C-alpha cells in the first residue's frame, strides 16, 4: 500500500471488506454500548440509527444496507435478543438502503456537482484531500424525505414482524420509540457525517 489516497487501492476487495467490517463493528458499538436515557422509566435511545444515517450519507445505500443490517443484528445477538436478529437485519438494512437511495436521488436531481457518495473515488482521482471541495450539505427536503422513508421502512417492518410475534397491539406500543430512534438518527447522524468529513478529509477516498 504505497498511497492510501489512490482510487485503485480503494477498489480492491480487501479494502472493501475492511471498510464493511469496521463499519459493521461501529454500528454494533453504537447500538450496543452508546445509549442515552430519555425517561425515568429507564427508556433509552441507542445510537445504531446514527451510524446508519452516517453510513448512508457518506458511503451510499448498499454499504448502509449491509452495515446497518448486520451491525444491528450483531448487537441483538450479543445483547441477548437473538430472536429479533433476523427481523432487525431486514428492518435496519432496508432502512439504510432507503435513506441512501433517497439521498443519492436527491444529489442526482440537484444540478451541483456530486462531491461524495458511491463512485466518487474514480471521479476525484488525482486530487488531494486538501484541495477537494468541502461536502455539499444534503438539503433539508432530502433529509426530511430520507427520514420519512427510513422511518416508514424500519417502523413498518418492526410493526409487521412484531405483530406476528407479539400481536399488533403490543407492536403498536413500540412505534413511538422507533420514530424517536429515527429522529435521533437524522439529528445526530447528519452533523456527524459533516463533522467527520470536515475533520478527516481523506474519508472521501474511502467510498466506492
Amino acid at each position, binding site marked *: *500500500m504505497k498511497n492510501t489516497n489512490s482510487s485503485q487501492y480503494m477498489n480492491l476487495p*480487501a479494502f472493501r471488506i475492511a471498510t464493511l467490517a469496521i463499519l459493521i463493528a461501529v454500528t454494533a458499538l453504537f447500538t450496543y454500548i452508546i445509549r442515552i436515557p430519555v425517561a425515568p422509566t429507564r427508556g433509552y435511545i441507542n445510537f445504531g440509527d446514527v451510524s446508519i444515517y452516517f453510513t448512508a450519507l457518506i458511503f451510499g445505500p448498499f454499504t448502509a444496507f449491509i452495515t446497518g443490517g448486520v451491525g444491528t443484528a450483531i448487537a441483538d445477538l450479543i445483547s441477548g435478543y437473538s430472536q429479533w436478529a433476523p427481523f432487525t437485519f431486514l428492518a435496519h438494512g432496508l432502512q439504510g438502503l432507503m435513506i441512501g437511495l433517497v439521498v443519492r436521488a436527491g444529489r442526482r436531481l440537484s444540478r451541483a456537482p456530486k462531491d461524495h457518495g458511491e463512485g466518487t473515488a474514480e471521479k476525484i482521482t488525482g486530487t488531494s484531500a486538501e484541495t477537494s471541495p468541502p461536502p455539499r450539505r444534503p438539503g433539508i427536503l432530502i433529509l426530511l424525505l430520507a427520514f420519512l422513508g427510513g422511518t416508514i421502512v424500519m417502523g413498518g417492518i418492526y410493526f409487521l414482524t412484531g405483530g406476528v410475534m407479539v400481536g399488533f397491539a403490543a407492536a403498536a406500543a413500540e412505534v413511538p420509540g422507533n420514530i424517536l430512534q429515527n429522529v435521533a438518527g437524522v439529528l*445526530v447522524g447528519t452533523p456527524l457525517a459533516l463533522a*467527520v468529513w470536515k475533520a*478527516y478529509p481523506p474519508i472521501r477516498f474511502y467510498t466506492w
Partner: protein
Amino acid sequence: MIGTAFRPGASFLHRTDPRIKFFILVFWTIAFIIPSSVPILLRYYLGTILLIAAALSVREVFVPLKSIWPILLLVLLLTPPFHAGGEIFFEIGGWYQLTEEGLEEALMLILRFSGITSAFFIFFRSTSIDQFILALRWYGLPYNAALIITIAFRYIPTLIQLYRNIQDAHTLRRPPLEDGRRYNPVRRFAHIFPILVSVMIHSIKSIPSLSMALENRGFGHSRERTIYRPLPKLRTVRLQCGAGLIVVLAVILIYFL
C-alpha cells in the same frame, strides 16, 4: 471475540452439529409462527423448555424469560380488548373487557414469543459464533460475507475499548457534572457528539491497516480456500441427522394430531 449467549459445555446439544441445530431452529421458529392453537403452542413450548432443562439446567429455562417479561405483560394487557368474542370474564367501565377469545389470543402470542425466544436462546447458548458462521457457510453464505462478519466480531471489543478511552479523555477535559441539576438529554447529546466524531474518525483510520493486513495474508490471491477447523462431513454425523429428522417429524405430528 466479544461474549455472546454461548457458554461452553459438554451437553448433547453442544456436541450436536451446528448445521442440524440451525435447520431445526428455523423449522421450530416456523412451527411457532404459523397459525395454530393454544394446546399446540403449549406442546411446542413444553418441548422447548424440556430440551433446555435436559441439555443445560432447569434454572436456564428462566434466563430467556427474564429479558422478555415486560413485553409479555404488555401482550397480556393490550391484546384482550381487541378480541371481544366468547364469555366475558371481567369488565372495567365498559371499555376494557377480558373475554374468552381475548385471553386465548393473548396466551397464544405469549407462548409463541416465549417459545421463539427460548429456541433462539438454546441455539446460541450451545453454539459458538464460529460454529454458527461455519454452518451459515455450509448453507451457502459467501466466503467474503463470512469473513466480514468474523472480522466485525473481532473488532467490536477493540472499538468498545477505544470508545471508553475517548470518553475518559473527553470527561477529563470537561467541567465536572453538575450535581443536583435536572437531567437534560439535550446536554447529554451535546456532550456525546465530540466523542462520536472521535470514535468514527479513529475507526475509519484503521481501515487501511486492516486491509493491508488482509492483503499481506494473501487475501484475494486464490479462490481455493482451506478451513482451519472445518465441520465434519455430514455422513459422519448420520445419527444426529436421524435425530434431527425425528424432531422435525414430531413437530409436524403435533401440529396435525
